[in-house]
């Protein structure tokens, strides 16, 4: 059951990225371009997502267990440390260079775009290096 849910959640998430146009790097870059021609749309993606996920999380977080798994896995890390800040700075720079973050990058593989495949391969190389450093 967990596996079917994972697949379905991936599909819904991917369709969300398409409808919101978050999958289009040009749209992302013009969202970040606040000092000239600014497209504020993507703020609404975040608002829309949070409007659904926030109440659901708080309604269910104190339940004993999820419906199809033995326990909830929620990050307990509360530390605001150098890794968090440096990592976010590096991610922000990469995001601003191309306009792709991990979700849209992987989703865009569906379009058989060579450039997005190159980006995703490099991103996985980054994951691998980080796993050796961490």
């Amino acid at each position: 059951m967990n596996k079917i849910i994972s697949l379905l959640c991936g599909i819904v998430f991917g369709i969300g990225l398409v409808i919101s146009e978050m999958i289009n790097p040009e749209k992302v870059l013009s969202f970040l371009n606040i000092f000239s021609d600014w497209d504020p749309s993507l703020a609404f993606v975040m608002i829309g997502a949070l409007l659904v996920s926030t109440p659901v999380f708080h309604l269910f977080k104190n339940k004993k267990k999820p419906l199809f798994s033995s326990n909830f896995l929620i990050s307990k890390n509360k530390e605001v440390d150098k890794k968090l800040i440096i990592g976010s700075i590096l991610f922000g720079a990469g995001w601003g260079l191309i306009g792709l973050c991990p979700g849209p990058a992987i989703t865009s593989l569906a379009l058989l775009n060579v450039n997005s495949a190159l980006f995703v391969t490099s991103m996985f190389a980054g994951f691998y290096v980080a796993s050796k450093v961490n």
Partner: protein
Amino acid sequence: MNIVNFTPITSLSGGFLIGLSVALFFILNGRMIGISGIASNFLISKDNRMQNFLFLFGLILGPLIYSFTTSKEINISISNSLSLLVVAGILVGFGTRLSNGCTSGHGISGISRFSLRSIIATITFMIVGIITVLITGIL
């Protein structure tokens, strides 16, 4: 500042779907979605590997199902500079794992939980993204 190409309705609707996916994954499977975490765990860890793979596979199926059912073409425009793609990809991969989250993990799942770490991470990568676009616009 000029406001251009503003599409609040489609952005909000797409956002609802993303939020729905995060909510369902939590209620049913007990995990908070962060794509960088799911993707890197699929690469380096045996735990939940099939679940992680199927989620990523679903992401890729999403646009195909969308195009098939709506007969709409999905057009994206992406930089052609190969070296920039490689550098940015490594920065995104390395950076999101160092900080344990990306736009989804910190920006949606983390903020849903009111995690201070995630709020700080989201503000940081947004500001750095804006500065990066500002600088590349000038160069």
